[in-house]
């Protein structure tokens, strides 16, 4: 009970003490104020950036694994690009041999001329895909129907376009059944999918005009196709397993010896996210270092001012001891004062930090729109401020507690 009362009393006393020396207290706690403000604003900025980037990743789609030809480093004289091409037998065997994969589609990408009526475009992105593409990409069908296995098996000259293409080629708004010329052949439009803008981070820009045709039909257009595979894992966290299975399968298909490098690439979006998160964590550690330094500097300021306070108030300490303040109580009093000082500095720093964050959010079109201050950052700032007070207030407080009351009362 007595301890609670003394803490209450000392906090009150410390606040009045600080209020009496406002300017001095401000300057003393400047290190802590700056440290905390810096942490809050930078953590919020990192948080905003992370949210932004993760949102971009989400737009590409989770659970996806890409398999594509890749020239091993420094082996250009050994392999030709032609050798590295994804083979049809690799596409066809993969689903069966890789249990972590739910579905996949090869994608044969070509830029070719597309024409409707008077409108002709020389290089339109035409992709030949299997029906599984619809499930993997998960794009809404705006009109008509998706590509089907019948289209695939019969090698029908049908296509799906995105809704941007309607405007681009001045197609009738109900365009299903209309015929357009793709690479000089007539294709019937069977469906329209929504246009998805891919983030500039992944090479996407403005929404493109897109045409999708059955994979087998595509093979007829390009007898020696260059393609890649997009596979979807059964669940997002299986990407490591899927990568291992695919790598094993591909190496066997290509008869690579144990010492040979991979002649293909396997990348998963989760992996990139994990790498990014690691980067963000690294940034946090770096930040923590900055905080530690600024709080160290702030702490030295606190220690200095507390030493001044102890020597200024030596007679007061002597008196308090004479009327019965025990050494432990005097120690507590000065510790509480140092901690209060630091916490006030921390609170001011928090307010300034929040101000900076609010200002950052106001910047138009910045990627920091969703910047928020996480609870842990607030807790960390407050905790570190208090710890600074505790650590750097200890020495002056011990000095005060050890004062001999007789000497202290005689002090001028």
């Amino acid at each position, binding site marked *: 009970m007595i301890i609670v009362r003394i803490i209450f009393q000392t906090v009150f006393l410390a606040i009045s003490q600080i209020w009496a020396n406002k300017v001095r207290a401000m300057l003393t706690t400047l290190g802590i104020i700056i440290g905390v403000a810096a942490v809050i604003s930078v953590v919020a900025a990192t948080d905003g950036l992370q949210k932004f980037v993760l949102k971009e990743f989400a737009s590409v789609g989770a659970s996806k694994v890409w398999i594509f030809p890749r020239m091993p480093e420094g082996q250009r004289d050994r392999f030709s690009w032609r050798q590295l091409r994804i083979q049809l037998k690799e596409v066809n065997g993969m689903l069966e041999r890789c249990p972590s994969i739910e579905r996949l589609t090869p994608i044969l990408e070509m830029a070719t001329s597309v024409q409707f009526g008077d409108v002709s475009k020389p290089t339109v992105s035409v992709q030949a895909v299997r029906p599984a593409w619809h499930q993997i990409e998960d794009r809404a069908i705006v009109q008509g129907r998706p590509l089907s296995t019948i289209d695939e098996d019969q090698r029908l000259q049908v296509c799906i376009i995105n809704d941007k293409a309607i405007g681009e080629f001045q197609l009738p708004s109900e365009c299903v059944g209309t015929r357009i010329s793709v690479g000089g052949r007539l294709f019937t439009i069977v469906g329209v999918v929504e246009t998805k803008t891919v983030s500039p981070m992944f090479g996407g820009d403005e929404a493109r005009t897109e045409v999708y045709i059955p994979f087998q039909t595509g093979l007829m257009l390009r007898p020696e196709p260059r393609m890649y595979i997009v596979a979807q894992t059964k669940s997002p966290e299986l990407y490591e397993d899927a990568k291992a299975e695919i790598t094993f399968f591909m190496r066997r298909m290509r008869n690579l010896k144990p010492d040979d490098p991979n002649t293909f690439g396997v990348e998963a979006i989760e992996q990139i996210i994990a790498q990014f998160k690691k980067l963000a964590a690294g940034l946090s550690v770096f930040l923590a270092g900055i905080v530690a330094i600024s709080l160290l500097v702030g702490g030295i300021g606190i220690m200095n001012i507390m030493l001044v306070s102890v020597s200024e108030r030596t007679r007061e300490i002597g008196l308090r001891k004479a009327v019965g303040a025990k050494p432990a109580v005097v120690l507590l009093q000065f510790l509480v004062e140092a901690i209060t000082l630091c916490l006030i500095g921390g609170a001011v720093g928090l307010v300034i930090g929040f101000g900076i964050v609010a200002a950052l959010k106001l910047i138009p079109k910045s990627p920091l729109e969703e910047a928020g201050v996480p609870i842990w950052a607030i807790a960390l700032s407050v905790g570190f401020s208090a710890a600074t007070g505790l650590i750097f207030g200890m020495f002056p407080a011990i000095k005060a507690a050890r004062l001999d009351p*007789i000497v202290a009362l005689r002090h001028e």
Partner: protein
Amino acid sequence: MTIRIRQLQKVYRVGTERVHALRGIDLDIAKNEFVAIMGASGSGKSTLMNILGCLDRPTAGVYELAGKPTHRMNATQLAQVRNQEIGFVFQSFELLNRQTALDNVTLPLIYSSKRWWGVRKRAKEALDRVGLGDRVHHRPMQLSGGQRQRVAIARALVNSPSILLADEPTGNLDSKTSEEIIALFKQLHAEGQTIVIVTHEEDIAGHAKRIVRLRDGRILSDSPTHEDVMHQDYLRRAAVTAVSVAKRELGDADVMASVSASVSASVAEVKP
């Protein structure tokens, strides 16, 4: 006995030399005594006062305050004794200038482990006792020297200490204010407070009932003051008169009973 001191010694080490500040003091002070301790500088007066106030510990000897063996206590226990048993009054008041009179008087109660309720009421009562009930919310800088010392006395009294220990309490006051403070001490003594004043002023010491003089770390003399001697002499003469009157009036038969009755009457008569 409120204070019991036996063979008290204090040795300071100044560099390689040993300075004997106290060389064996024996002193008893009973409850409700009013004692002045006098001595020139270097007599050991300040050392004795520090030990009496439990601010310092003796090198050897026994010091019991209100039955507690303080010579065997550590710093924390001594702080407790200072809080409960001793009320300090200093020459330069030692008030906290940022705080009100009431807060200053409350200070010892804050550090007290017993009775934490009604603290401000008790502080207010202490201020009433020293006649400052109307200056409760004044800060020391708004008070005169005499008033400040009254606040300090109220602070010393607030925990109902066994002894009130005053160190040159009038040293910073003019003669008129000093008289007022001395009058306050006398009033407190009449109310039953045990008071020990350390001073070098004969006038001030003269108001006490007993003077202990120190020289070179020893007690030089320990005697009642002039005022008290007169008083006792008066009583003795009154008693003698009473006995002779009794003998004359009653003969030898019931002398003793009559004497005691007469003495009581005489004592009642001479009491101020």
